């Protein structure tokens, strides 16, 4: 797991799972469809990514589909880092 993926995964575990929740979050675990992050909570996750990586993710790109796994989120961040 690369650094970017690890940071995102660790943030999701810290912020979106209750302390003591032993569910495993992998790179491919479904976050939105799996009920770990919902469409409202996506806003704070997006805000974290934008601040941490100094990027701007347009609202129309921040879709439930794009946020449905750590892997997909990392790909989204990379895309905007390259711009």
């Amino acid at each position, binding site marked *: 797991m690369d650094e970017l993926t690890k940071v995102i995964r660790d943030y999701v575990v810290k912020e979106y799972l209750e302390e003591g929740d032993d569910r495993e979050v992998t790179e491919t675990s479904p976050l939105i469809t799996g009920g770990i992050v*919902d469409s*409202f909570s996506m806003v704070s996750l997006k805000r974290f990514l934008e*601040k941490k990586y100094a990027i701007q993710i347009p609202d129309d790109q921040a879709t439930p589909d794009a946020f*449905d796994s750590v892997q997909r989120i990392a790909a989204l961040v990379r895309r905007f880092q390259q711009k």
Partner: protein
Amino acid sequence: MRNLSSYEDLTAGFEWTIAERELGYTKGATLNIGWMCSDRICAMGLAGKAALIWEDHQGNQKRYTYDELRLLSDAIAEFLIGLGVQPGERVCLFMDRIPELYIGFLGILKMGGIAQPLFSAFGDESLFVRLKDAGTAAIITQKKHALKVRKIREQLPELRSTIVVDAGDAPLPPGEVAMRMERLPKPVNFEIHPTTAESPSVLHYTSGTTGQPKGVQHVHYSIISQYLTAKWVLDFQPDDIYWCNADPGWVTGTSYGIIGPWSNGITQVVLDSGFSAERWYQFIAKQRVTVWYSAPTAIRLLMKEGAETVKRNDLSCLRHLASVGEPLNAEAVIWGEQVFGKPFHDTFWQTETGCIVITNLPGMPIKPGSMGRPFPGIMATVLNTKTYEPIQETGLAGLIALRPGWPSQVRTYWKNEAGFKAKFKNGWYLCGDRASIDSDGYFWFMGRDDDVINTGGHLVGPFEIESALLEHPAVAESAAVAKPDPVNMEVVKAFVTLKKGFKPSDDLELEIMNRIRKRLSPLAMPQEIEFVDSLPKTRSGKIVRRVLRCKEFGEPVGDLSTIMEE
């Protein structure tokens, strides 16, 4: 549509006794929603019919017949009795959309308990406020949500049992007990508690402008309106496969996600998954859904995904579409017609009404963007905001008001009779919304009449958010208002002044957002926080949210002289 004749024919001489007759209820007899939705359907010869087909986000499926519904709800009822839960006590359901939630609801009612469903995304503070107010005796939950219960358990002396439905084999802490629904002993000839029409059944919590959320108390007689409105508005036919998107933590999920379909003997499907357009369409196609009751926020999210995603799936099974939660914009109605070949029928109601009260009935001409017309048996109007008299002229905005007396009307607010009485003026029940009525009798929604925020179809109270904001060490004052949003209609925006020594920053904003999300719920989390030097206040120091709200909506604030003098 097959269930209905013309609107005029339906309303002329309408009596709720139509539903009483169809349900076999006679005045004064015992009446139990749990029995009505399971045993009665079995007695009608439908014991082997599928009642619930459940699927999770990974595609795992479970299927329950009406006979299994009957036996499993009996078993849960007996289990609760075994724990010492008494008739009239509140039993909270705090789960994702898993079968135990739906079947447990019937089980609680069968043993005479009051079902108190709560949205499983609630944080520990939201949960605490509602359990404390209700004096809840037991909570049925999942392992992951039991963690929130543990945080507040010691402050809830009336909460005797935490029932965990997926505990596994590991030992549980004191006060927690495992319940594996499928392994419960099936009682023989379980005796359903002899509830009657006015026995309390369900306690849903809803938010207001002031104070903490209110417990909306319903009774078993509510099934009369829930059965008939489901049958007529959702146009149930015996072979229908029905999907209601709503979570039973909210009233739509119980009135039309449990009672409505099962009292009609309908097969319903449930998808326990977060939003994904592709996944939803695949589910509709796979389960051959015929009747779909959704929400404007979900429909607008689907619209964003475009028509191509629709075309990849065979959705020809869909026969009737309806929507609830917030006003359905005209574009969404038209979009539904374009991509599904049929429009969404908007319905209007709220936690307190217990059933649909204004609606676009099947077969009625739809005016895109309109709420429709009152359901037969519901007398609805709009009132002048000052005199509380019905407005006679068409097109003028007023307060949506209903003449009390329909079966599923709220009976009181839990331990808050004064708050309940305040909802009535001149013999009308005030919904808290504004609308106008056109010359054909169609209602047109204009907005809330108070500071409550309708986000994604859920009402969020500003007081609860402001209280939680003030718990943050940096926050001196706060105001939470609605901000317009293209998908959710409204989202929460907070205005905050900071204590000495704290400075606005992106880090602080994110920290506050996450804190509210965890303490209250994702719905209550401000999507934006504006740090300000001061907040608009009355002479006596009360924050005037209206000024901030109007600014967000780009509306004129109007005359504030009276308010500012308060």
